[in-house]
């Protein structure tokens, strides 16, 4: 056994080399974010000569990152909550309620959504969003348009995962609830949802990260500067500041830090949540 452990040193060197190569660009960008444009070129590898937050201040002011992040947080959370609520309700209905035929039809219909890539539908979706009016207000260029569309495209995988979980809950718990006088919605809110929390947390993370990072739809549906989400806002900033690396690095670092901070604390849950869709699918 000792010999086997000793034989592992080269594997560690290989893996550490790979990890260093993958993470170094981020470290390099972090160091660049404190340098001036001139210093990035002249002193590429060294530590910044002084830690000034000028780039951060400049990027914060010109890139509106705070505003974009707030927009992203609102759209992402609203879409996630809506998705989970609808998906859990539907999964409950088709996994626990006694309408066998309809259940199967609804389930298969929803699974169709896993086959069609939303990428093929941008043009009709765009026309649709432009054409819809809700309570006399156009839906185009509102956060609601993103929330509804994100929710719709997250539904198939969310129903798929929650449905599988709910199907595995034993009947006894429900029967106890029914004896206590609960109706269908009581069973749903008081028994099935609390038990299904692990699956719900998993899909919450999956959807949260997907929505937070979504770029194309947000770029198609949102035209107002003040409504942009973080990825589209960053892309706009990138177009305007392509040569100003100092500000650009600071802006990128600012947009990454919150994500990495959350990742540090919730690694296990995030990895599990993000890979859940593909393993089970």
């Amino acid at each position, binding site marked *: 056994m000792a010999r086997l452990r000793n034989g592992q040193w080269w594997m560690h060197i290989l893996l550490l080399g790979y990890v260093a190569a*993958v993470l170094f660009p981020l470290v390099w960008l972090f160091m660049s974010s404190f340098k001036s444009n001139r210093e990035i070129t002249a002193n590429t590898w060294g530590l910044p000569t002084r830690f000034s937050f000028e780039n951060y201040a400049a990027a914060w002011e010109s890139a509106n990152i705070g505003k974009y992040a707030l927009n992203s947080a609102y759209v992402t959370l609203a879409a996630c909550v809506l998705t989970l609520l609808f998906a859990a309700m539907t999964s409950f209905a088709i996994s626990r309620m*006694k309408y066998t035929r309809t259940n199967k039809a609804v389930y298969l219909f929803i699974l169709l959504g896993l086959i069609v890539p939303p990428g093929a539908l941008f043009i009709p979706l765009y026309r*649709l969003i432009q054409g819809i009016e809700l309570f006399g207000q156009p839906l185009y260029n509102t956060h609601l348009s993103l929330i509804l569309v994100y929710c719709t495209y997250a539904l198939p995988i969310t129903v798929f995962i929650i449905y599988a979980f709910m199907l595995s809950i034993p009947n006894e718990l429900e029967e106890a609830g029914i004896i206590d006088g609960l109706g269908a919605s009581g069973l749903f809110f008081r028994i099935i949802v609390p038990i299904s929390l692990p699956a719900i947390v998993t899909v919450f993370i999956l959807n949260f990260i997907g929505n937070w990072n979504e770029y194309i739809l947000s770029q198609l549906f949102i035209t107002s500067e003040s409504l942009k989400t973080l990825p589209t806002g960053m892309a706009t900033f*990138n177009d305007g500041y392509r040569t100003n690396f100092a500000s650009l690095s600071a802006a990128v670092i600012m947009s990454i830090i919150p*994500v990495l901070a959350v990742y540090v604390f919730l690694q296990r849950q995030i990895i599990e949540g993000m890979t859940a869709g593909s393993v089970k699918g």
Partner: protein
Amino acid sequence: MNKALKNPFTYIAFIVPTLALYAVFFVYPVIVSFYYGFFKWDGITDKVFTGLDNFARLWNDEVFRKALANNFYFMAFSLVVNIPLVFLLSIIISKVGRMRDFYKSAVFVPVVISTATVAILFGVLYNYDSGMINQFIRLVAPDDWAREWLSDPKLAMLSILIANAWQNIGFFIVLCLAAILNIPKEIVEAAKIDGVNGWQETWTITLPLVRPILFVMLLLTVSGTMKVLDIVQIMTNGGPFQSTEVMSTYMLKVGFRSMELGYGSAIGVAMFILILVLTGMLQLMTRREEVQY
């Protein structure tokens, strides 16, 4: 007892929101994208029915062919470079005892960063004068080996593929590692008693038993590379000289820049059918590949 779970009002209230959203934002766009595909339409004047003209045009469109070829290049690169690398790294991670969780968390870091941010990050890294990559080349090799990575038609696609690999490999490693660690210990131990050594174990036990995850990775790679969009659009938007054009960037250009909504929809339909056919073929090929322990 069936009564509580046979309440039609609750049932309808519980499934209608999902089905309504689904019908409006999913089913309807799918149907009209096929429908639009048969028309010449600029979005403003009346649609003109042209039958299969859009699809015939697609067949002869040089740019579309170029885009399709680039999608296949994307797929081939991911299959030939990314997936073997994923296997190699996951097998090594599964073999080391200590620090396994550290490696797993570290390789996953790029996965949580948004594709838009990754594209911008690599735009900075690839810059000619001060980008990290050229600066590194100047450090270890003659100065004139530095390249205009994203504006050289010969290198732009490769540069995007590297950025894409940087972001995605970690995701696949985690999938693959989970599958490897899932192999029952008894099988590995039985093989060891039979005198199988470390790398034989990899060939004879690990690889055959993780075939289902290989299938998942192939599926994700094929559909992912056929519809790839964000990273290309932000890094080069198909340029220079359409050397990095892919189907979806071309679709958006045709649809929104040239306002040819009918033709754009036809490209979307072609993309959808292509993905369906390719993933369907994969599924047929691996149908009998159920692994039993």
